[in-house]
């Protein structure tokens, strides 16, 4: 035991990364034969499980204080790994989602070719995600973030068609833009604060002038692209329908959360830096955080609304779920905004955002897996063409029901807890902050109702009603995918029945270490009674409103209204513009190039003349 303890204390991140790297090196050498393939899949799952267990094991250590490791001499400044409660829970959660999705890949990927490259990049994404969550300084964070973007791109385009690669191009360009924006933020910050650790960045934050808004804006844009924040969410509905559903579950489940984690980490480090500072600095920090927080709240609200309205219009299952991902991440972003806005009293927003990220990962993952199972059997993506599948696929129907109830926030399912906490958070924002935020609360309720309506539509169209002729002979298959869905459904129920468990073990200790106001935490968060009448009545209002929206929509065919083709912001609009600008751009460039090539002496003479005249100006 002692050896393990010292080993863990010395080099845990290295151990985790090395185990992953060994697996990566092993994968290409396992050939294509049946037995070797199964061996490879099994090793992938075992590795993920192993690393997750290691992470769980160090929980009591991290509970005391965050663990740090310095690895010097690489990149000129050394890499720092830092695991505290915030990252630890995300890492365990990441391990969990990766494990469950790897179980489900038996359904999706087993038949498709090129398994080697898929699992290779799967493991690479896993390692880079863990690395991103473990990183203690901005430089290594950025490195792992970029690796994660590139390897998830390869996963997304695994289907290798012409359209898939074009959609993937959108994903990777957005990803690179996000990465560059984060790099700009890091550069601006480190140029002014001369170092790169998350912990100390906050210290100087208060002393900076307006430059901190620029840097915060760059960070929020960069992480927002990853998290699917509007108006930068365009890549989500473009790439999700084209990728495998396991990859969608992965992306929605954990990769988008890394974006949210980034913004959360930024806000939390700024708050943490106020320790031991004098009042003036603390004031400056809280004021700037308020401004940033207000903007983030409204960005979150816009995201929620855009996501859910677009989701209501969709016919294809996967696109609808993609838009719902955007919308739910809007909830999370709004929660983070509240945490920033209220500063030290923002523990409720922090808890809500954190909790909802975890819950959303689980139920959205389950929804994608369910859609995957349905698609695998029926080969149909349009929900209006399906129906009555509860007879043919009872198991899938049950887990689908659990997931839909979770996302809409039914009590006894995990979504209820996080949505309630978020609701409390937004209420506090308009009670303790600007009263104009009460509209934010109304919109929050409206969006929850629309979510309910949308899932009523999905569930009733796909599973209830009468079955079309061609699906009547379907038989359900029980394989690893069903086990995966079952695990997730069970976790949903457990968290739903015992919501305070997660709060007490992870979120509240995290909030305590992150310098939120103790009094606030003790009074409002500890032992929060989630099943009180106020919240339950809220839920009833939401469901009633949802039912109303659903019936009205179905009656008057509102769900088929699309914006006219000219205003449609989908890729039907972007693509012709891309093509036309591409062609005219090429023409202009070739014209300019010819001009420049054929008039060398003219350019030389003119440049010389211009330079000398400009220099002469100095006298």
């Amino acid at each position, binding site marked *: 035991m002692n050896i393990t303890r010292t080993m863990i204390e010395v080099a845990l991140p290295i151990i985790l990364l090395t185990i992953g790297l060994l697996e990566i090196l092993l994968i290409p050498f396992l050939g294509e034969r049946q037995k070797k393939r199964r061996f490879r899949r099994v090793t992938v799952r075992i590795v993920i499980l192993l690393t997750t267990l290691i992470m769980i094991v160090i929980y009591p250590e991290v509970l005391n204080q965050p663990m740090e490791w310095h690895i010097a001499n690489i990149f000129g400044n050394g890499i720092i790994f830092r695991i505290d409660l915030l990252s630890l829970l995300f890492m365990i959660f990441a391990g969990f989602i990766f494990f469950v999705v790897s179980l489900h890949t038996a359904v999706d990927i087993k038949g498709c070719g090129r398994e080697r490259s898929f699992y290779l990049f799967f493991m690479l994404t896993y390692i880079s995600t863990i690395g991103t969550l473990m990183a203690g300084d901005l430089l290594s964070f*950025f490195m792992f973030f970029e690796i994660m973007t590139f390897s998830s791109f390869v996963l997304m385009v695994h289907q290798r068609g012409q359209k898939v*690669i074009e959609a993937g191009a959108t994903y*990777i360009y957005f990803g690179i833009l996000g990465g560059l924006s984060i790099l*700009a933020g890091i550069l*601006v910050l480190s140029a*002014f604060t001369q170092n790169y650790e998350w912990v100390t960045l906050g210290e100087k934050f208060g002393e900076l002038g307006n430059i901190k808004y620029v840097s915060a804006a760059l960070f929020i844009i960069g992480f927002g692209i990853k998290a699917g924040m509007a108006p930068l969410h365009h890549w989500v509905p473009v790439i999700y329908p084209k990728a495998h559903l396991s990859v969608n579950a992965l992306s929605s489940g954990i990769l988008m959360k890394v974006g949210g984690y980034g913004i959360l980490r930024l806000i939390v480090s700024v708050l943490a830096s106020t320790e031991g500072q004098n009042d003036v600095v603390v004031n400056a920090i809280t004021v700037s955080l308020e401004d940033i927080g207000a903007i983030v709240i409204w960005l979150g609200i816009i995201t929620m609304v855009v996501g859910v309205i677009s989701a209501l219009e969709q016919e294809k299952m996967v696109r609808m779920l993609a838009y719902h991902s955007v919308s739910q991440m809007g909830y999370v972003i709004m929660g983070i905004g509240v945490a920033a806005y209220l500063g030290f009293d923002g523990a409720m927003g922090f808890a809500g955002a954190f909790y909802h990220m975890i819950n959303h990962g689980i139920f959205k993952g389950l929804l994608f897996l369910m859609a995957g199972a349905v698609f695998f059997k029926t080969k149909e993506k349009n929900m209006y063409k399906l129906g009555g599948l509860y007879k043919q696929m009872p198991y899938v129907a049950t887990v689908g029901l659990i997931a839909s109830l979770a996302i809409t926030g039914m009590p006894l399912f995990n979504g209820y807890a996080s949505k309630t906490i978020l609701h409390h958070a937004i209420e506090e924002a308009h009670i303790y902050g600007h009263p104009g935020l009460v509209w934010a609360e109304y919109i929050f309720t409206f969006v929850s109702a629309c979510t309910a309506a949308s899932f009523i539509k999905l569930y009733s169209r796909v599973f209830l009603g009468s079955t079309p002729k061609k699906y009547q002979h379907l038989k359900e298959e029980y394989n690893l995918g069903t086990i995966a869905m079952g695990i997730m459904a069970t976790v949903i129920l457990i968290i739903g029945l015992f919501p305070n468990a997660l709060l007490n073990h992870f979120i509240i200790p995290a909030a305590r270490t992150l310098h939120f106001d103790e009094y606030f935490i003790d009074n409002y968060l500890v032992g929060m009674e989630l099943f009180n009448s106020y919240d339950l009545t809220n839920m009833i209002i939401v469901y009633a409103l949802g039912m109303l929206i659903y019936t009205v929509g179905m009656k008057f065919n509102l769900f088929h209204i699309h914006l006219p083709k000219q205003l449609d912001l989908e890729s039907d609009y972007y693509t012709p513009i891309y093509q036309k600008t591409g062609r005219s751009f090429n023409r202009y460039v070739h014209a300019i*190039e010819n001009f420049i090539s054929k008039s060398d002496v003219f350019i030389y003479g003119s*440049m010389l003349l211009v*330079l000398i005249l400009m*220099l002469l100006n100095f006298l």
Partner: protein
Amino acid sequence: MISYHFPVFILMLLLGFAVVIPLHRKPFGKSFVVKMFSVLGLAFILAFAELLVVIYGEAYSYTFGSYQGGIGIEFLVDEFSALMTLVVITLSILILAYSVKDLEHEIASSKMYSYYTLVFLMLFSIIGMIFTNDIFNLYVFVEALSITSVAIIAIKNKKDTLMASMKYLLMGAIGSVTVLMGFALIYMVTGHLNMSLIFAEINEVWEQYPINILLAMGFILTGFGIKAAIFPLHNWLPDAHSSAPTPSSALLSGLVVKAYVFSIAKMMYRVIGQEITINIGISDYILVFAVLSMVMGSLFALSQTDIKRRLAYSSVAQIGYIFLGLGLGTELGLSAALFHVISHAFMKSALFLSAGSIIYYTGNRNVRKMDGIGYKMPITMAVFTIGVLGMIGIPGTSGFMSKWYLGLAVLDGGHPELLIVILLSSFLNALYYLPVVVSAFLRETPLEMHRSSLPQSMKISMAVVGLGSVVIGFYPSMIMNIIEAAVSTFIGI
């Protein structure tokens, strides 16, 4: 005392071997290759020993003929010159190792010996330019470099190659003459040809003859600008670098252009000094042209379909980065620019060598037709991907570290808006490099493209260049420490 003669030993070794090559009578074969690499290996050892001498000792100056500085020719051996020489020799070993097999497809076999003569003479001129401390000596080496670098393009006897090399030669000649005019103007007012002595005099002279110095710097900047491919004067570069044989393209893009940039840096910081540079405002004008290079180079690259032309325009953009660092006028900017000189040399060589391998293997130069090559040529595409990742600026490659240092230098120098330009240019780089990588790995090969299989020597040399780029990316402090020590002597002396 023997340790101080290293610059001369290296130069004379290269020159001596260059003139011995034409005496070989036998057809081009293994014995010659062995001889060539033993000479290069010896040069490498000498350069490495020199670097160690300078790092653990101090910078020194070496006068020819035991005359003092003002009368004789002087070589100033400081840390960066030693490092740059080592980089030049290392890269030339790798590129020449690549070229032994590659040139069989590109030039006539009777001209192989001439090619290597020219390459050695070119290396002689580059190393001379790096070391020299005398402006007329600099001019001599510039002329030698002009001619030999044109010759290694023109040795491939195709129509577009000949036209491109003609254009390069003429524009280079205009550049040399302009530079000479600038040097003459400086000599006129200061009376010295030695850079350190000019620097000592320049401050008094500046008050008396300001217009003269301005004109001189204007001429020198334009002249060297033509050869170093600053934006409006870069038009010879795409034709020349894309139609040349692959090892020549790599040598030109990686080493020759950098030698001229380094000469501009020497003129700006060692001859007329940092103060006057900033006072005149040369730094600001270089910044303008640098930004134009960075953006326009990438924009032009977007619409090219020939892969080598795309790489050549990308060179224009990357040289814009180096000028950005120079134009900031601060120590940090100069260090970042010098770091990028070395990291770009490795990355661009890797890219050109792998592009050349693709052309060797498939006979196809069109970017749109490179689907699925990644599975047929994994090592080549891996090296290409490393180069691409470096150009975009992914951490772990040397390109990221140079963008990092440049970003910090830009913010330190008080031009934060240029940070946006750097990142925009990185994004444009991604726009035209990533589709090549994506289509190589993620699409299916339409038909059999195999023309001739890749020899081992080519693969190994490419892989080493790519590896070098990654190593610099992980341990940039090795090089950055040397550069920072050099910058203080550079600006001080």
